[in-house]
């Protein structure tokens, strides 16, 4: 063979949908397809975890039937789920306790509480949660659903569930009007999206979330329809359809005011708002934006952080009324996850991993999320749950399958021209740097010349072989770990075929463990410029 040449690519940059094919030649580390992969905070692209039913094989549905989960959030030593006309609590996903009952002010014991009549959450919609920690065992959780008055619930006691005390009530924000959004800001409960008062933001008495009429409480009406609220440092950011505002000096009735932040940028969904990396991220018509605090007090900076995946965001924006939007922050992974689903066929999401150079993106396909919630449990461990139209609550980002189904994962590189698009290259072999978290067997697809039908394309996938998980001295367990598994093995794959450029797609569709693709080493042979 003629003298071969090397080409090394480190996987970094995430999914890029907004660059043309020639632009992508200059950024070989990014991905033109990154489905059910996530950008790893250590670098490389990792196949995502799956999800499993809370309760495993014994899991039950809160309502007992396939009723869409409208809200879910970890609470205390379990999880709260909203579905149908009820609010439910479970420690294990097997037994559910319906908690939308109104307790005595001083609380009820288990028997009394469960004997109380249900306070039906008629017409309950997508839920919003706010937690007042106070000095309670688990904090007080306030649930708003857009159809009823906010529901306050807390639980005291650390023993068995039937030994605990339950407190619950309905919060009156504005007469009997329903509330869509609640949040906590500077010791106040904030409510917005109040029925018949869509442009008014209400705040409770300081440190008294149940009181919207006492000293320190108030309401301010602005000119735009409010679609979301979130506290950000000393300000409350009010997200409207066509503008952004901030409520300042909430604890000073003399100077409390709403100050405009942006008059031409609105928010498409309040359920997209999350705080990550010192920023508030929200879905705007032109993509995901941040409300970043700047060095100058009182000023904010708005910036779009999703330019790389602008076509995806454009699609979401166009169909925003058909989609149920949910979002979460995965703090362990520095990730912002936004899910959009029409609850019929489209079950997609995007993952933004915050890396030193900003967000790097990937796509999720096949996870239907009608509600998602994340919080730290009573021992400080972050937990993530989501619900769907199946009526089950799932442990999010857990396991190796989508509740038993295969995870189809695809990571497609841009086309590589190896420095010269005019020279024919014959591929010799490929070395893939991969890290496995179990025994995995992904495959590699090779496409030449942007998949041109005028160029012969390999008809089958190239086998990456079996990648064993690493066995490290001190960690490996005899009889469990596989001898010889390297931490970051370089797997050599003989290749065939030639073209002026080519791309690789790592594909797996199985219920095997996640793996990370760190990079590629390609050995090719220049073969003329005809």
């Amino acid at each position, binding site marked *: *063979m*003629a003298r071969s040449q090397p080409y090394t690519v480190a996987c970094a940059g995430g999914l890029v949908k907004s660059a043309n094919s020639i632009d992508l030649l200059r950024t070989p580390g990014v991905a033109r397809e990154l489905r059910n992969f996530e950008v790893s905070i250590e670098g490389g692209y990792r196949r995502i975890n799956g999800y499993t039913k809370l309760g495993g094989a014994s899991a039950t549905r809160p309502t007992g039937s396939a009723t869409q989960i409208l809200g879910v959030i970890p609470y205390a030593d379990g999880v709260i789920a909203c579905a149908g006309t009820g609010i439910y609590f479970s420690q294990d996903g097997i037994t559910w306790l319906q908690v939308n009952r109104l307790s005595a002010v001083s609380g009820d014991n288990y028997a009394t509480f469960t004997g109380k009549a249900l306070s039906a959450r008629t017409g309950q919609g997508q839920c919003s949660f706010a937690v007042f920690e106070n000095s309670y065992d688990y904090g007080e959780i306030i649930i708003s659903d857009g159809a009823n008055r906010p529901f306050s619930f807390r639980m005291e006691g650390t023993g068995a569930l039937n030994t605990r005390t339950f407190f619950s009530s309905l919060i009156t924000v504005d007469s009997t009007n329903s509330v869509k959004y609640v949040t906590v800001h500077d010791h106040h409960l904030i409510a917005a999206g109040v029925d018949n008062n869509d442009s008014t933001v209400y705040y409770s008495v300081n440190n008294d979330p149940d009181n919207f009429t006492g000293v320190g409480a108030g309401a301010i009406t602005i000119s735009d329809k409010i679609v979301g609220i979130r506290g950000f440092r000393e300000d409350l950011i009010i997200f409207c359809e066509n503008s952004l505002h901030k409520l300042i000096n909430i604890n000073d009735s003399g100077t409390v005011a709403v100050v405009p932040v942006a008059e031409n940028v609105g928010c498409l969904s309040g359920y997209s708002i999350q705080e990550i990396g010192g920023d508030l991220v929200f879905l705007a018509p032109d993509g995901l934006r941040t409300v970043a605090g700047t060095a100058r007090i009182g000023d904010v900076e708005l910036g779009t952080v999703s330019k790389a995946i602008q076509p995806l965001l454009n699609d979401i924006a166009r169909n925003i009324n058909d989609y149920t939007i949910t979002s979460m922050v995965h703090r362990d992974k520095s990730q912002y996850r936004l899910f959009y689903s029409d609850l019929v066929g489209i079950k997609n999401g995007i993952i933004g991993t915050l890396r030193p150079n900003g967000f790097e993106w990937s796509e999720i396909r096949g996870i239907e999320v009608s509600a998602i919630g994340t919080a730290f449990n009573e021992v400080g461990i972050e937990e993530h749950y989501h619900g769907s139209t199946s009526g089950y609550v799932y442990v999010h980002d857990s396991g190796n399958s989508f509740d038993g189904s295969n995870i189809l994962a695809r990571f497609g590189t841009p086309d590589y021209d190896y420095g010269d698009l005019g020279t*024919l290259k*014959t*591929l*010799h072999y490929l070395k893939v740097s991969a890290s496995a978290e179990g025994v995995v067997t992904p495959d590699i697809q090779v496409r030449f010349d942007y998949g041109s039908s*005028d*160029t*012969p*394309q*390999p*008809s089958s996938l190239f086998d990456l072989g079996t990648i064993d998980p690493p066995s490290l001295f001190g960690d490996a367990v005899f009889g469990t770990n596989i001898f010889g598994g390297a931490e970051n093995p370089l797997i050599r794959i003989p*290749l*065939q*075929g*030639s073209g002026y450029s080519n791309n690789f797609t790592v594909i797996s569709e199985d219920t095997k463990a996640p793996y990370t693709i760190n990079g590629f080493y390609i050995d090719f*042979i220049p*073969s*003329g*410029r*005809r």
Partner: protein
Amino acid sequence: MATTYLDITNEVLRELNELPLTSANFASAIGLQQFVKDAINKSIFDIANEEPQLPFLSAGLSGATDPFYGNVTVATTAGTRWYLLKAGSSSLADDYGSVDWDDFYLTTINVSGETAPYVSKGLRFINLEDWKRYYRDSENEDDANGQAYGEPVRVIKSPDSRKFGLSPIPDKEYNVHFYAFNKPTKLTAYSDTIVFPEQYSNVITSRARYYVWQFKESPQQAAFALEDHKKAMRHMKSNLMNPTPRVMTDDRRYF
């Protein structure tokens, strides 16, 4: 099992680390794969052009229809000088690729009505110029004046290379035996078989690589491939065509 067009094309493709073809996509091959297919045919033609009398190109088995030497038999007709080398052929494109002009044989054996003593002799090849200079005029006069024909003793090649002629013009029916070689047929379908014994397929593949490396602008690799081809060709000719050994005796010691 005979080597097919698909087999040998894929052999070259694999040597070049290119994608092999399948029976399904063979006909619709594009790009380099089609070039290799073409190179295979070109290589076979090159080999046949360089050595048209390779045994596997033989027009037929020697002596299959007659005990005499040759694999083609043409019956003469009294008074007819010229005969098509390949009966039924309509053009040079369909004719034999090569004829051994040094091995024409004339006989009356197995000719209907002939009895012993038979005529049985080799025909001497003379070129057209000699024939025209020394024999044509007298033979034509004999033919025109008294149809005085004779027993052929010479064989000539027609200027268009399609016929052989006999001199003198035959006076009766004889059988003329000679040795002919077919032209290689251009391969088209994936299942077309190569006439070369499998042992010599590398003569074709090395030649094909020579063309492909030129296509890939690698003169060094092309030179290596050409050297491989020459060596393989030399061995093939040595094995299949070299004359049987003859004894050389140095008798100077008797002086």
